[in-house]
Every structure is written in structure tokens, then in C-alpha cells.
């Protein structure tokens, strides 16, 4: 076991995968010589050469399209989209080519690509460097969508994603790169080196895509979250002194609905939390599923805590961010109902 930040864990996943399989290539903007804007690919070009880890021009559509062609021929490209916000020029390729090539070729061709993309706020990037576009992916059949919340999961899930035969959108919450951010922006972040989930095996392991993890067992209310919001939810639950069960989805597509249904059937109350904007966000899907599957167990309406329906603001980042106070208010609301 080693102590790793999420950056190191992601890098280790790519390293292990490249070591094991010559077909794995890593590329994207600044990922080769520079080592990635967040340093996730640092050292990989030196170790594996410029043919396997290399810089691409600033051409997201071309990058993703090229990766799809590589994958159709049998390579396994692991692409870094420098920020999730930069994926929009490639959205055509993602939705209409990557997600559908298996379906329309009747399984003749597949698309084993991974698009890694730093997501969410946390660096005052404003509206073009802070977005959480996961719902734009979960709305597309033919994609898998993964959001890790800690280094251990990040490595195991990224290895599983690279080995997966289908296209995986791998969203890395940049707020978690260096520590388990609990939403208290005015307090220093605890480094991963002091967190048990910063313990990461150095070798190969994988975590199945589509299995949620219960981060805190409880009986009074279920909190469904993923990525950064897992840590915010845990902080809010402690502060409120509520016996909540906190579920870390880890994968949004496929979704581990069983774990959610079992939990809500037990607690009868549910709060859904994400950083992305409210309207038509992934939380809407979760709320709908909970009411479909747990309606007769529910003691209170399902409540969503999310970013506001505004562009991600620069100066007011912490007013936008659904921190522990807002999650706490939602917990109080469902408990009173």
C-alpha cells in the first residue's frame, strides 16, 4: 500500500494499465511533455515514450473522434479532456459516434475509450472551468459515467474504465484531487495522506463499474451523493447529528439502484445531493427513481440539494456551492416532514 492523492491514484491507474497492455495510449492537451494541467499524466511520456503518451492539439472534437477511430481498430485510448467544460466541441463525437457505434454496427465495432475530465468547482474557474456536465452524459444511452470520490476508488474505477469495452466518461472532481473537501472552504483541506481512502495499492486492482458504496450506515435518512458531495454530505450529517445513511454512487451509469432502494425502503427519507445545477440534473433522475421504487416507504418528499440554476459564478463560488449548511437544512426538512 502507498499513500496517494487522487492525482497520483489516477496517474497510477494509467501507469498500471499502460504497463499491462500495449494497446492503452494516453493523450490529450498538454498530457505528454507537460504532464497534464493537473499533473495527472506526469512521467508517463518519459516512461512509455511519445507514441503512447503524447500531446494533442487543442481540438477536442478531433481528439475524441480520433480516439473513437483508434478504438474501433482495437486500441484503448485514455484521453484527457483538460476540463470537463471543454468537452462541448466533442459532444457530437461522444453522443453520436462513441455512444452508438456498437448499436448501429450490431456489435461489429465497439468503442473502448475513456474520457477523463476534471469536473466541478473549487478553483474559482468561473463558468467555463467549474461545470459538472454529468447529466449531459447520463442522458445518452451507450455511455458509462463514473465519478470517484477518493484515491482508492479513482484508481480502481479508472483501471476498470480503461478495461471496459464501452465508452466511459470519467469525471474527476478537481476539488478532491488533493484532499477530501468537506465543503468548509474556510478551513484547510485534510490531505489524502491522513485519510484512510488515501491508502492505495501500487499494483493492479479494479472496482466494478455500477456498484455504489455506503460511506456511512444509518437508519434515519438516506443521502445519495457522488464525487465531492459525498464528503460534504458526511460533514453535514455529523454536524446535524442525524443517523443518516450516506451512499456514494461512484457510477451514475450504470446506476446501482438496488443499494438506493434498499436504503430508502429502510429509512423512508431521501436527500439527493450534487454540485451541478438543479433543473434536469442527475438528481431529478434519482428523485424520480426513488419515488417510483420506494413510494410506499417514503415519509417525506425527496429533497434535492444542488448548485443553483445559474452559471458557475466566479466571485460567489461559495454562495453557489451546495455546502454543509444547505445539506444540513435539507436534512432537517426531511426529518421534520
Amino acid at each position: 500500500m502507498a499513500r496517494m492523492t487522487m492525482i497520483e491514484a489516477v496517474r497510477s491507474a494509467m501507469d498500471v494499465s499502460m504497463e499491462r497492455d500495449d494497446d492503452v495510449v494516453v493523450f490529450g492537451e498538454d498530457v505528454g511533455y507537460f504532464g497534464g494541467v493537473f499533473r495527472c499524466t506526469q512521467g508517463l511520456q518519459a516512461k512509455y515514450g511519445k507514441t503512447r503518451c503524447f500531446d494533442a492539439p487543442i481540438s477536442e472534437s478531433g481528439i475524441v473522434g480520433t480516439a473513437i477511430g483508434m478504438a474501433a481498430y482495437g486500441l484503448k485510448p485514455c484521453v484527457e479532456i483538460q476540463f470537463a467544460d471543454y468537452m462541448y466541441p466533442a459532444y457530437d463525437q461522444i453522443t453520436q459516434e462513441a455512444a452508438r457505434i456498437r448499436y448501429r454496427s450490431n456489435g461489429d465495432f465497439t468503442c473502448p475509450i475513456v474520457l477523463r475530465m476534471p469536473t466541478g468547482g473549487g478553483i474559482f474557474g468561473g463558468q467555463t472551468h467549474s461545470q459538472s456536465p454529468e447529466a449531459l452524459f447520463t442522458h445518452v444511452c451507450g455511455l458509462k459515467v463514473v465519478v470517484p470520490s477518493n484515491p482508492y476508488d479513482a484508481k480502481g474505477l479508472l483501471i476498470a474504465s480503461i478495461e471496459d469495452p464501452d465508452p466511459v466518461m470519467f469525471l474527476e472532481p478537481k476539488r478532491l484531487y488533493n484532499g477530501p473537501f468537506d465543503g468548509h472552504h474556510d478551513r484547510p483541506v485534510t490531505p489524502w495522506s491522513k485519510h484512510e481512502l488515501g491508502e492505495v495499492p501500487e499494483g493492479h486492482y479494479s472496482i466494478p463499474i455500477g456498484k455504489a458504496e455506503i460511506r456511512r450506515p444509518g437508519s434515519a435518512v438516506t443521502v445519495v451523493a457522488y464525487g465531492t458531495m459525498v464528503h460534504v454530505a458526511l460533514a453535514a450529517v455529523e454536524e446535524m447529528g442525524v443517523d443518516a445513511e450516506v451512499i456514494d454512487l461512484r457510477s451514475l451509469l450504470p446506476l446501482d439502484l438496488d443499494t438506493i432502494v434498499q436504503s430508502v425502503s429502510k429509512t423512508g427519507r431521501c436527500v439527493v445531493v450534487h454540485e451541478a445545477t438543479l433543473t434536469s440534473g442527475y438528481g431529478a433522475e434519482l428523485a424520480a427513481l426513488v419515488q417510483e421504487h420506494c413510494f410506499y416507504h417514503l415519509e417525506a418528499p425527496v429533497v434535492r440539494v444542488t448548485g443553483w440554476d445559474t452559471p458557475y459564478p466566479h466571485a460567489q463560488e461559495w454562495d453557489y456551492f451546495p455546502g454543509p449548511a444547505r445539506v444540513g437544512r435539507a436534512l432537517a426538512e426531511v426529518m421534520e416532514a
Partner: protein
Amino acid sequence: MAPRKTASVSSRKTAAKPAKKEFTGSNIAEFDRDQDLKAYREMLLIRRFEEKAGQLYGMGFIGGFCHLYIGQEAVVVGMQMAQKEGDQVITAYRDHGHMLACGMEARGVMAELTGRRNGYSHGKGGSMHMFSKEKHFYGGHGIVGAQVSLGTGLAFANAYRGNDSVSVAYFGDGAANQGQVYESFNMAALWKLPIVYIIENNRYAMGTSTARATAQSNYSLRGSGFGIPGMQVDGMDVRAVKAAADEALEHCRSGKGPIILEMLTYRYRGHSMSDPAKYRSKDEVQKMRSEYDPIEQVKARLIEKGWATEDDLKAVDKDVRDIVADSADFAQSDPEPDVSELYTDILL
């Protein structure tokens, strides 16, 4: 671990040379008898297939989109005659001719047009979306220009694997104005990828003529900013296409990177079945048909040189019509896909 491969993706080793030195287009080859007969048969198969598809569409057996390749047959046939086993083909939505030229079965293509169980995509793709791993045909893509990046990725895979294959990526004069085409050009030139970009310039992007859509209508120059050589080819003369293809494929196989062939061609029918083609004159179409038809050119040559009699060619036509009629029968009698197919092949 040392990478297996040869083609460097290092940006320091780039710079394809200027067009003229690299690519002359000077080897205009004559065809021998076998080549002309082969070209005749292949082009005729596409033409008869497309005529039948048009009929079936009119009769209501084919729904949705159906883009006919009639008039442009010399382009894919000439290219295919120059290609080697393993070279990948990828194209847009006017794709029936490409599939037939690749050797895909007429039955499977026609049955996909009618949306039947034994169509190449089991009815999930339709006219614009068919594939064959066996024949190295990578689709069949309905989004204008999107396939160009995929073709670039195929070329990357060839370079990475160190094989001798070339990716042949087709797109039209309309797609040539899409941004991602230039992203692809840049990457292909930067990494010296083995790809022939084929711009099938049939003069109309749906109903918009090149004159109304583009500031530079010499599409062979479109790669010049990246140092990609290109040339204009008489896309109505299968021999000219084959000669240009030979040179372009050799250029790619010898490690010189990408190349562009602009095929000057013409489609006789509308863009799709719902297009009455009022944006051009009947005289224009008639002139192309009567003076430049790719099949008639070969036919005249075969007769003139005494390589075939009218009867010989009628026999070829009959043979081709039989194949097409069989595919049409099959495409009408093959069952529709089971409703359970709806949810297959979405994810593994």
C-alpha cells in the same frame, strides 16, 4: 516497455513537403481489358443497386433517408481497385456504393435499407449506418464530417500497430467546411498518419452549390496550411481515379503522411429522396449524363477496343441485375427485427 511502433507522434518530426514535389498525379494509367471489365461490372452493380433502391423507396419499402450514389461510381471503384486488403474505408451517408465496392453483400445492404433482420446492422442502422469488420468498412456515418476524425484515428492505429494499411476517409464538398475536418488534417499531418482524405466534390452540399458555400472551391488545396499535398482528380474517369489512388496510397505507405484527393464528380439524383434538385438546371444534369458518365466511358472504350461486344456487356448487365433483383427480393421477404433487438448492443 518500448512502444511497438514506428510512426512517431512527435511533433518535431513533421512537415509534409509541398504538394507539387510529393504528388504529381502524372501517372495516368491506361486500363487493360480485365481492369476495364472489372470497373464496368463494379460500377454497374452500384448503379443498378441504387436504381433499385430508388424504386423500393418509391414503393414504400425503404423509409427514412436514402442517398443515392448514381453518377459518382468511378470514385469508389477506382479507389477500391488500388487499395490493398486491410486498408480501411470510412465514409458519410451516401454510402451504398462504398459498401458494395468493399465487397459487402448486396443482400445485407438492401435488407438494411428496408430495415430487416439480416441487414448489416439488423435494421438498427438504416441507409446511413452500416459496418463490416470483415471487409474493413467502418461506416456509414450520418453526421456530416464526423467520420473524418474517426478515419484519422484508424490511421493512427495503423501507424501505432506498424502495419502497412492505409485509412481511406471519404467526405463531401459540404463536409469539407466542417471544423473537425481541419482538426483532423492538423493531427494527421503532425503525426504523419497514413490516410487518404477523399473529398467527393459533387458540386452540391444538399442544395447549396459550392459557389454559394465556400470561399475556396479548389478543395485539393484545403490541406495546404498543414503541408498536406492534394490534387484534383477527374472523378468521372475510373482510370484517373485509380492512377491518383495508386500514387496517394503509395505516398501513405511510404510514411509520408496524409494526402488529399479531390474527386471532381457529380450526382445525378437529388441529395436524398425528398430532393427534387431544383437548384440546378436539367441541362446541367443531362450534359453530365451524356458526356461524362463514368460507366458509359468504360463501355465505349470496351467496344471501341474490341475487348467486349454489346452482347458481352448485356450479359454483364443481366448478371448484375440478377444480383440486385435477388437482393431486393431478399430485402422484402426477410423478417423485420424482433422487438427484443431494441435493447441489444447498447452496452456490453
